[in-house]
């Protein structure tokens, strides 16, 4: 029996589909696990899908005086989240044609664009809490960026390229690559960045309803209906994208398809989702074990992430690899 070979374009599309359709599942599963950790029954695993369907059916309300930006932003953000999966290793160990469209920085820029338009829309709404959330998100974003840059540098000097595929590939070559300090530190730093960027404790309580502590959640308070659904979906996708980068670039780039054969590619999809849920469980665990930091202490948390990332680059130049 001959293996069915998939065209690269199909795999490319599958990457997007996996992220887009898998994201609510991962969110739901993690939310359920988190509830169990807290001793609650929690929502159904598929609850996020129902939420999205419900929101798409609702009418859209637009704040008075806001322009097309308010409605355009969710679409742009969602589109950005669809572009990023094309650039990173989601299902395959080798770069797909569009994977060379942008490097790891390019992916970062696209993600930043999404964050920017959402903040713009929040400002557009004129609502105080949304603006508060937007300004905070931008402030902390300014602190997260250098950390991400240093992580990228670390990846760059290890592999001498700026392609995420290359790092994952070198990781698979042996244990010496896994324990090299530059990699370990960059991975931990990126872990902290993901923690901060997905709105998790100790930076933000993601499931809270207290507007004062909100950062990412606060920005979308004024949205409703289909645009709101897009934003919620987008933030689930963003979470899965960050998890995917963390898993497939730094932590466990195993289980990816090495060929274009149907079997491995189809296997890679559940493998990714299971790994993502596992990572999400770790985050949920952290969520339950620590308390949220005061807003002004968040800089300390980010300073720690920055220190790690800076150390990763330094240790490399020390000859410590």
């Amino acid at each position, binding site marked *: 029996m001959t293996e069915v070979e998939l065209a690269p374009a199909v795999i490319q599309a599958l990457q997007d589909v996996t992220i887009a359709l898998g994201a609510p599942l991962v969110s739901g599963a993690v939310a359920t696990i988190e509830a169990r950790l807290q001793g609650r029954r929690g929502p159904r695993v598929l609850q996020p899908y129902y939420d999205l369907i419900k929101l798409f059916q609702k009418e859209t309300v637009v704040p008075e005086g806001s322009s097309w930006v308010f409605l355009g932003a969710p679409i742009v953000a969602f589109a950005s989240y669809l572009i990023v999966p094309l650039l990173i290793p989601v299902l395959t160990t080798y770069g797909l044609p569009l994977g060379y469209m942008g490097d790891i920085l390019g992916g970062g820029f696209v993600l930043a664009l999404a964050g920017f338009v959402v903040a713009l829309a929040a400002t557009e709404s004129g609502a105080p809490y949304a603006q508060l959330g937007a300004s905070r998100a931008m402030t902390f974003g300014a602190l997260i960026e250098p950390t991400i840059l240093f992580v990228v540098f670390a990846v760059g*000097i*290890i*592999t*001498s*390229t700026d392609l995420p595929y*290359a790092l994952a590939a*070198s990781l698979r070559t*042996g*244990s*010496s*690559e*896994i*324990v*090299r*300090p530059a990699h*370990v*530190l960059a991975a931990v730093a990126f872990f902290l960045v993901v923690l901060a960027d997905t709105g998790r404790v100790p930076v933000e309580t993601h499931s809270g309803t207290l507007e004062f502590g909100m950062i990412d959640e606060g920005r979308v308070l004024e949205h409703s209906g289909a645009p709101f659904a897009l934003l919620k979906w987008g933030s689930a996708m963003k979470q899965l994208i960050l998890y995917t980068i963390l898993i497939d670039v730094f932590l466990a780039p195993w289980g990816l398809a090495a060929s274009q054969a149907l079997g491995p590619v189809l296997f890679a999809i559940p493998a990714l989702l299971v790994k993502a849920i596992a990572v999400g469980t770790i985050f949920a665990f952290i969520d339950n074990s620590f308390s949220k930091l005061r807003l002004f202490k968040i*800089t*300390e948390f980010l*300073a*720690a992430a*920055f*220190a*790690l990332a*800076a*150390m990763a680059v*330094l*240790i*490399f130049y*020390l*000859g*410590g*690899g």
Partner: protein
Amino acid sequence: MPSVAPSTFAGTANVIAVIVLLTEFAMLRAPLLRSQVRLYAFQSLVVTALAVFVAATRHIDSLYVLAALSFTLKVIIVPRVVTRLLSRANVSLAGNSSLGVATMTLIAIAISVFGFFSVGALNLRSPVLPEAALAVSVGVILVAFVLIILRSDVVSQAVGFFSLENGVSMASLVVASGLPLIIDVAFLFDLMVAVVVFGVLMRIHHARNRTLSTEPLDQLRG
């Protein structure tokens, strides 16, 4: 060309060394005295682990003895002594430094970078451990200095000194793992004596000033 990774051994050793350094950074920002003492115990544990790791991979049996001793002294006894002192003193918050945590971290990074590169420039080669570990331990020592200078309570300063000693013993693992055991033991014993003296002086300080902050200590100006 992708850079060549160091061997698994070197990589692991470096990671352990870096964990020691990061613990030092964590001490710099720890707001509670107790957490500082715990961090010290953890750091000592990591240094002990490094000793065991070197002993096992390089077959230097005397290091096992050293590891056992330093585990007993630095992971169990010293933290316990300091913790008892703290519970008597009934003080939990560490003294604030005049600088914010982010600034302190940046200063510490800058200083350890300085240490890294000045050691790197000397081009010391070690037979047992990667040179980067030496540079990192010098970083630990320098950050311990920052800790002692910037934190304003006697416990942080004492813990800073103890962790400075951890940095030195890590350096000795790197460049002088063949150091005769008796000398290592002498060093450890000496540290123990120093701990006792620090404890006595902390108690005197607390008895006199009812605080562990160093703010009352500004009468004498060198």
